């Protein structure tokens, strides 16, 4: 046991928990500000939006950045979570008094239903790759919307009239959810399973040859991502009313994808920052750009998407990227140091061989001339 603890201590690094600890710190600061009355209504609303956007971006990053498959139906899972979660919350609140407990139960129900559909969508994922999978997830998102639009129990085309949660408390619960999601996902990625997932992304055939169960891991990632998206949906459903199917369109899935790509595929911290940034920008522009000018926002997203992807992936930009990337700069510095050491070593070797050669030369000539002898002595001293 003590051995285990010391092992854990040895492996513990602050950077492993830095992400969620800093989110926790921000949350505590916000709670203090809130109790002091420093936050107005719209800021509190913005915080809830940031929270569910972070969950969405991080969970999509698991599929796109770590598994390497493109999912265009993330809003569909969120839609399921929002409708089912708020619907079950309405039912549960009749028998359970505590609002908080109802919300937590609703999160699990919404997440579970989304996860079940994630499993169903993950099944074709086993046989399909890349483009096909993208189109299947896109189709799934459209199917979900189309069905909810026509179900009368969920309000049909008018949307489901959900009961909103106390806004001043919702953002705290939402951020706690964010922290739990972050802990779970970051531990998953660092585990054996996380390494298997990234191995599948890097080379599926090689991963299979190494004995990784590709089928299992693909389904696993889809189910987990769907579960978290469902939870984000439940938070959304308790934040705003009515829950309307038009919100969860293909465009929304793309917006989440923009967060992931902008933050960097495979970077959790990047996703958090990008999700926060984009949500804040959306919020700030919402009142300023009305009507058709709102298209400017979409245009900027599209341009960001294109330029970031081309810059990161185009073979032509590789030299430029390598020149300015931080990790490359570090690597080059180490390389330089090594070069200096290597130079020194070469110098020593050269001198030594020179000495030996001179020694050989002197032995060969019986009556060695004076200058040659001197040279030999001098270099031997250098050698010592």
């Amino acid at each position, binding site marked *: 046991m003590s051995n285990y603890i010391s092992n854990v201590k040895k492996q513990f690094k602050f950077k492993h928990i830095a992400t969620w600890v800093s989110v926790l710190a921000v949350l505590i600061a916000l709670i203090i500000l809130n109790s002091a009355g420093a936050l107005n209504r719209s800021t509190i609303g913005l915080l809830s939006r940031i929270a569910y956007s972070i969950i969405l971006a991080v969970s999509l990053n698991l599929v796109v950045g770590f598994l390497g498959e*493109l999912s265009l139906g993330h809003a569909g899972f969120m839609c399921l979570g929002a409708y089912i979660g708020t619907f079950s919350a309405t039912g549960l609140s009749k028998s359970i008094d505590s609002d908080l407990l109802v919300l937590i139960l609703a999160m699990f129900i919404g997440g579970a239903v989304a996860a079940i559909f994630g499993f169903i969508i993950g099944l074709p994922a086993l046989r399909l790759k890349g483009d096909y999978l993208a*189109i299947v997830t896109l189709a*799934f998102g459209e199917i979900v919307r*189309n069905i909810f639009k026509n179900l009368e129990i969920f309000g049909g085309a008018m949307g489901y009239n959900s009961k909103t949660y106390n806004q001043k408390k919702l953002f705290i619960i939402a951020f706690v959810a964010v922290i739990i999601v972050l802990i779970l996902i970051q531990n998953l990625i660092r585990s054996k399973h996380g390494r298997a997932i990234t191995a599948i992304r890097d080379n599926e055939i090689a991963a299979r040859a190494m004995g990784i169960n590709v089928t299992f891991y693909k389904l696993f990632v889809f189910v987990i991502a769907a579960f978290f998206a469902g939870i984000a949906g439940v938070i959304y459903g308790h934040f705003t009313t009515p829950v309307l199917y038009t919100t969860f369109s293909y465009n929304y899935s793309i917006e989440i994808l923009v967060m992931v790509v902008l933050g960097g595929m495979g970077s959790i911290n990047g996703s958090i920052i990008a999700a926060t940034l984009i949500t804040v920008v959306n919020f700030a522009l919402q009142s300023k750009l009305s009507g058709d000018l709102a*298209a400017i926002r979409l245009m900027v997203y*599209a*341009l960001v998407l294109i330029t970031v992807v081309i810059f990161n*992936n185009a073979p032509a930009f590789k030299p430029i990227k390598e020149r300015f990337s931080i990790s490359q700069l570090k690597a080059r510095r180490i390389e330089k140091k090594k070069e200096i050491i290597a130079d020194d070593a070469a110098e020593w070797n050269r001198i030594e061989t020179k000495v030996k050669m001179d020694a050989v030369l002197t032995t060969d000539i019986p009556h060695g001339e004076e200058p040659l002898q001197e040279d030999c002595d001098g270099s031997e001293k250098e050698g010592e």
Partner: protein
Amino acid sequence: MTTLIDGLSLGAIYSLIALGYTMVYGIAKMLNFAHGDIIMVGAYTILTTLNITGNPYVAIAVSIVVCTVSGIVIERLAYKPLRGASPLAVLITAIGVSFFLQSIAQLIYGSKSQSISLPDFGKVSVGGLEINVNTIITLVVGGIIMAALTVFVKKTNTGRAMQAVSEDKGAALLMGVNVNRIIMITFAIGSALAAFASLFYLMQIPSITPTLGSMPGIKAFTAAVIGGIGSIPGAMLGGMLLGLIEKICLSIPAIGPYTTAIEFSLLIIILLVKPIGILGKKVREKV
């Protein structure tokens, strides 16, 4: 019977769009998400030139030119730098291009739907059935275009070069095929087909919005997948099939609202049962 003819004429539109998808997919091995939005570009071009000149034929010609040029420009600027990059990157870029085109259209023309009046040739009665002449034109012209495309790919040098590039890019390059040029020509042809599709679409539904292309685009891709992506007859078959299914579903009141869900479920089922589509070729993965 009317439903069947409507279905076939919608199917002809889907087929034309699906052909664009399938050709680009077969040769450049990428899913051109922006293809649907090229249709939208074509539709707005027809609208604008019609408003300026008043001559529908000039409008159609201009729209073909504009679509072809924009297809080539998109390929050069967005897709060519990514040749050799991961498919995921290309796919995301294509989505970005699609969004870009939509937002530009919304900035220029607004998000409200605009109506367009194309010449209406009235109706003819064939054996007691009233059929729109526009429907007949769609079917006939669509059929001619598809036949011409098949002949082009099978018989001409460029067409054979296309087949070679689709089979093995590296080997085609060694045989002296200019791969970049062939891919550019493919995009040009696909976009020209999109221009025709936009014309036929407007003949059936004469209103234009910036998102006009995205739904037919996705459905046409579904058609291409159902027929077997990369195969030209497959795209035609899939398009016709999907058009028929859509119109038949819409004509039955009980399942009418769920048409979109049914079409996409069909896609998922086909991909699960026969991932290569009805007429697709099986591709073995090499290490």
